[in-house]
């Protein structure tokens, strides 16, 4: 087991190296730092002096891989690749292109992201399971037909509509919650209620349909037939036997998503003005701050890989028959 996990971690590091090289290529060789500077300063008539100054300020003036001007090991380390890309492995993010420390920002913003993401995630799973179990419970009735139709309809609506209409309805018309913003303490609930509600609603359709097929698959198994032939009521069969067994694949599949919750909900955060990592990323994309985008790519893949490893482990815990070798 330990061996297996170590191997998976090794593989994860390998992938991270790939991601790192890939983003480096994309950001520094496909487009040169000169292009970035020009784009960042803006305008077509940017003098070479201004570009050089911009590059020096951000440390982009060094060679990419090999600094012949230095001596010894510094030939290798005084390069853009080591300073701006390889350093990420030590979670040393450096400064953003606008000059602020990325690591500090990440630490500050991860809290609000989690405050939004975790409740959305947990409540969302609960709502989806209840909805899809009801669909299964009322199968072959009009309730199921219309329930599934509703789910497909919900699935066909862009998440942006949910946000815009939700803000309009709850904040502007009913004035129940503020339109956007964020505060600590007891106010947190007021600010997060609507984003959480919308987050759940926008995911409900697709996930309920998916869980429904999972439950239906489970319901055709032998133990369910046995339970029914014992004379157990449908409610007991569904909510005790089927739910418990179907929860295993559901939970193991959600483990993979857990670490990514740290990244926050991109759209939701920026719409509701929550100072989390999602809105940080969107701001970075809009202001074309490549340093932040690169850091977020790296953090995102680290979390994804952690999710992969956790999934593998959770399989063995959930089902002892699976042996990892």
């Amino acid at each position: 087991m330990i061996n297996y996990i170590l191997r998976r971690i090794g593989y994860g590091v390998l992938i991270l190296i790939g991601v790192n090289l890939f983003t480096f290529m994309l950001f520094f060789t496909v487009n040169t730092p000169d292009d970035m500077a020009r784009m960042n300063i803006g305008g077509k008539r940017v003098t070479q002096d201004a570009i050089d100054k911009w590059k020096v300020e951000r440390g982009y003036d060094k060679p990419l891989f090999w600094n012949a001007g230095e001596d010894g090991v510094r030939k290798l380390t005084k390069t853009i690749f080591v300073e701006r890309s390889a350093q990420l492995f030590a979670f040393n993010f450096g400064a953003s292109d606008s000059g602020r420390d990325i690591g500090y920002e990440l630490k500050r913003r991860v809290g609000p992201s989690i405050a939004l993401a975790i409740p959305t995630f947990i409540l969302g799973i609960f709502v989806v399971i209840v909805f899809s179990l009801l669909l299964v419970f009322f199968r072959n009735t009009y309730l199921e037909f219309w329930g599934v139709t509703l789910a497909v309809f919900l699935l066909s609506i862009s998440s942006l509509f949910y946000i815009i209409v939700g803000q309009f309805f709850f904040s502007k018309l009913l004035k129940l919650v503020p339109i956007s913003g964020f505060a600590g303490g007891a106010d947190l609930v007021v600010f997060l209620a609507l984003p959480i509600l919308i987050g759940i609603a926008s995911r409900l359709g697709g996930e309920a349909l998916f869980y429904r097929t999972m439950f239906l698959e489970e319901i055709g198994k032998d133990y369910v037939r046995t339970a029914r032939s014992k004379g157990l009521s449908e409610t007991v069969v569904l909510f005790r036997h089927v739910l418990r067994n179907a929860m295993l694949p559901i939970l193991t599949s959600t483990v993979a998503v857990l670490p990514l919750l740290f990244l926050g909900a991109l759209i939701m955060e920026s719409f509701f003005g929550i100072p989390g990592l999602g809105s940080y990323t969107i701001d970075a994309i809009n202001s074309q701050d490549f340093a932040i985008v690169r850091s977020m790519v790296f953090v995102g893949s680290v979390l994804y890989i952690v999710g992969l490893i956790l999934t593998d482990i959770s399989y063995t815990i959930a089902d002892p028959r699976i042996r990892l070798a």
Partner: protein
Amino acid sequence: MPKIVFLATDVALYGLVVAIAFYVWHALSTPTLRQTWRSVLHDAVAMSAAVVLLAFLAVAMLDSLHFRSLLPPAQGAAADAAPAYSTRTLSVLDWLLEKPREAREKSYSVPLGTHGFAKESMIVDGTSIRDYPRLQFGGAHLKDTDAEWARDVVVRSVTGLAGGAAGAALLWLLVATLRARGRTGVRASLVAIWHRNTEVPWRAMLWTATVLVLFAGWVAALWPVYHVFGTDQTGNDVLFQAMKSIRTAVVIGSLATLATLPFAIVFGILAGYYKGRVDDVIQYLYTTLSSIPSVLLIAAFVLMIQVFVDKNPQMFETALQRADVRLFLLSAILGLTGWAALARLLRAETLKLSELDYVQAARAFGVSSANIMRRHILPNVTHIVLIVAVLDFSGLVLYEAVLSYVGVGVDPTTNSFGTMINSARNEMSRDPVVWWTLAAAFAFMVALVLSMQFFASAVNEAFDPRARAFRVRRPKASPRASGHPAPAAVAASD
């Protein structure tokens, strides 16, 4: 003679239509495929959805024929001077809808409105007053708007709907006649359609078409003189924007899916067939790609494109071409970043297939690996490709809106549902609310995505027997008591 302009996405879109036509021909001449598609053809919901999709596709195709009109020769130009073309590239749709395209107001106006949305200072009879200004085009034919407006709208609506109804009636007759093909009478054919005694659910399809035609008739009657869905902040007709957005959505949905196919098919089959080292490398490749959050990956690529386009302005003759290249590349990027899921499915299926007897036999006969993959494996995984392609379409249309919001979607000058929703964001916080942009984007987008969902799920059920077990049946005469096991579920366990 106007100069015809071929934009990158136009060529791709028409290429796609040709490819679909080729596939239809292929499916018709293959008995098994014909049999499978028959179950889609007989599904009323799927076929009604197909009618809606065809209407959307028709608009998109009309909007994909671009030209630059010939300008009248300049004063005193030599007779043999090279012809000058307009700098504006128009599509056939633009040309057909010239009136609403050119009818630009100053700013917002409500649907079917005759007056502006905000009060303005103006001078009437020598005194300066603040009032709602008359629109330049919307309801410009009315003299006294208060007295005439309601009557005019009703009269025009009724005329339009009547025209639509006549068109729909013609459509019913046409289908009945074509279906009868002289063998049975037209009347008998109509009766058969009405009583649903036809294999293909003509009645459902015709009803859907009737609704569409009625809507088209209503719009056709009102659009020349009113802004049916109002105007946006810069006074552009919202319905026209929605019509233009259809093409963007169709291009993104179809081309991005198309772009995933080469990577997914080649890598998926290679990994599954060769196993070992090749498999390791390919798996590494797609795990790496999918480990990067997709929005960031797309953003990175799009920022790169932006730099490239800014650096090479001479490559694009017109602004439309520049915007179009961005749309084309965005689709390519969505394909480049989105092939992992399909490749994974194809790899698993190929792993299974390559152990089957007929592949072993082919190998024993000395058929080369390339030929085995092409002739024996590829045809047997196409159903997966097809299912994933149709299922992905709607997701991509929705994704475009999100990307446009993040700022890495289509060019800001390109009409798309994403840009429409984006502008609607601020409009909803105005007082009084400007709701029509959002409503128009919502209606068109939901119609497109929803019909694609229904069509896709029918295709999925036709090609994947496992999915058929989970299909929702509309209960017939007497709904079963819920205590019984569903027949679907029993079928799944057998």
